[in-house]
């Protein structure tokens, strides 16, 4: 399937400060992309460029085959955008604001009323329908901002920190909503919250210091060498020596809590049962084994590794 969003060597500078550098990626229709990065890594700048709000300093982005700079109007018809911190018209009431947004997205009166009703229902905003926006809590403001992005059923959604300021229940609601878009709409969710992204995205891109470090962090996590967490009673050095002697063990590290992390030596084509070998070796040597568990490399590990490697290189 042809990609719906293609970025080619995007760069953005604010004077001497480089916000984005050489960012290229392609996104297929129906993907839910998590855009992960620490604060100030360029996530919002990237989303603003994709939304056609900021022009890139170099490179180009095509959305549905359209250049976001030259064909801004047509691009805006295809996107729903939630800017960072959910800016809204404080003087309006919720339904009035949503009606206005629906109308400027080109919906006629009846269609606009229907879309507003559906959005209010999807984001559970019924209770504040007629409330003035300046009275809303942060959580409600965030949901109103998401509700306006859904109006007009755009094929692409760009959400900048959409779960900011939401409580646990609201986060679950929004996460389910976004997950439900997979396959039907293309979504890019920017966030600095690792756990959030891992739960709603079908693919995670990582942006650090304006550079795209990976287009698929989950694949990196899955491909990373498996690690085992081992806890055994006995002298630490003796346990470590025993672990290191097991065939197939690559590296042994001791964590602050006294447990060991065992990394398998890379042996292509072979999948030995390292856990069984370790258990046999420790028990055989007379150590009381209290924990032996596989530890999947998660997004956090990939994120930290890539960020450290990037900062060390810089």
């Amino acid at each position: 399937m042809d990609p719906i969003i293609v970025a080619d060597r995007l760069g953005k500078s604010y004077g001497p400060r480089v916000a984005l550098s050489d960012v290229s990626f392609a996104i297929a229709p129906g993907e839910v992309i998590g855009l992960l990065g620490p604060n100030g890594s360029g996530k919002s700048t990237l989303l603003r460029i994709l939304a056609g709000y900021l022009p890139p300093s170099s490179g180009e982005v095509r959305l549905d085959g359209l250049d976001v700079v030259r064909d801004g109007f047509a691009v805006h018809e295809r996107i729903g955008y939630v800017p960072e911190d959910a800016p809204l018209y404080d003087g309006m009431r919720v339904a009035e604001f949503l009606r206005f947004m629906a109308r400027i997205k080109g919906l006629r009166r009846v269609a606009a009323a229907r879309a507003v009703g559906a959005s209010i229902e999807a984001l559970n905003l019924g209770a504040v329908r007629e409330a003035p926006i300046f009275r809303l809590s942060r959580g409600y403001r965030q949901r109103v901002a998401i509700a306006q992005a859904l109006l007009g059923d755009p094929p692409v959604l760009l959400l900048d920190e959409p779960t900011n300021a939401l409580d646990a229940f609201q986060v679950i609601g929004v996460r389910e909503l976004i997950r439900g878009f997979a396959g039907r709409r293309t979504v890019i969710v920017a966030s600095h919250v690792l756990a959030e992204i891992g739960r709603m995205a079908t693919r995670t891109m990582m942006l650090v210091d304006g550079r795209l470090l990976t287009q698929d962090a989950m694949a990196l996590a899955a491909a990373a060498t498996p690690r085992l967490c081992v806890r055994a009673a006995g002298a630490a050095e003796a346990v470590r020596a025993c672990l290191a002697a097991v065939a197939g063990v690559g590296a042994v590290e001791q964590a602050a809590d006294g447990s060991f992390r065992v990394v398998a030596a890379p042996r292509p084509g072979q999948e030995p049962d390292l856990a069984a070998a370790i258990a046999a070796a420790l028990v055989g040597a007379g150590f009381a084994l209290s924990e032996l568990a596989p530890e999947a490399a998660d997004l956090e590990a990939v994120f930290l590794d890539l960020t450290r490697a990037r900062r060390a290189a810089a």
Partner: protein
Amino acid sequence: MNRFAALLGKETRALFTSSVAYVVLTAFLLIMGYSFSLTLFLTHTPSLVHVFFQIYVLFLLTVPVITMRTLAEERRQRTLELLLTAPVTEAQVVAAKYLASLGLIALMLALSSVYALLLGLFGTPEWGPIVSGYVGLLLLGAGLIGVGVFTSALAANQVVAALVSLSLFLLFWIIDQFGYLLPDPYNALVTNLSLSVHFKPFATGSVYLSDAGFFITMALLGNLLAVRALGRR
């Protein structure tokens, strides 16, 4: 058209749900009512020439207040990001704000037409200068609002926007005084930039296309520059 109507509706509501419109209207009607009755009792002449000159000065002072929030407030609240990523053009955004502000000026003039009606009821005024005076004021308002919307597009702060447009208006109110000091041909050039020089004929009953053209150019240039300012992000 649907989108523009929505933008215009929003701007008009924003103007009339804030206190600005009512404060401006109240101040305008109080001052003009006092000034109209005083002039009429003193001169016993069914003419609005004095009233027109007073409205002219009031416009220079109130237009910055009317236009200051138009774009500066969107920028401060960061709602500009919502507007400019929606399928509307920058020209539509600016035009809606411009027309809503012009609507308030037109309303002020419509309410002040009570004075002309009173003159018509109780006297025999010369209607030509009255009509030309109103046309001149509407054109002046159109030009001033253009400049006001432009300064609001540049400033991130409403007060700065108001102060910049007020300074510009005051400068171009009296710039003909400097023009007279300059050698030929600069004197004509600078004198012709004056708002007073172009407004005076309207107030006294003479309509020149060049004067109308001056205010229309001001309005168009203001809008054009505001659109350009929004485009630079």
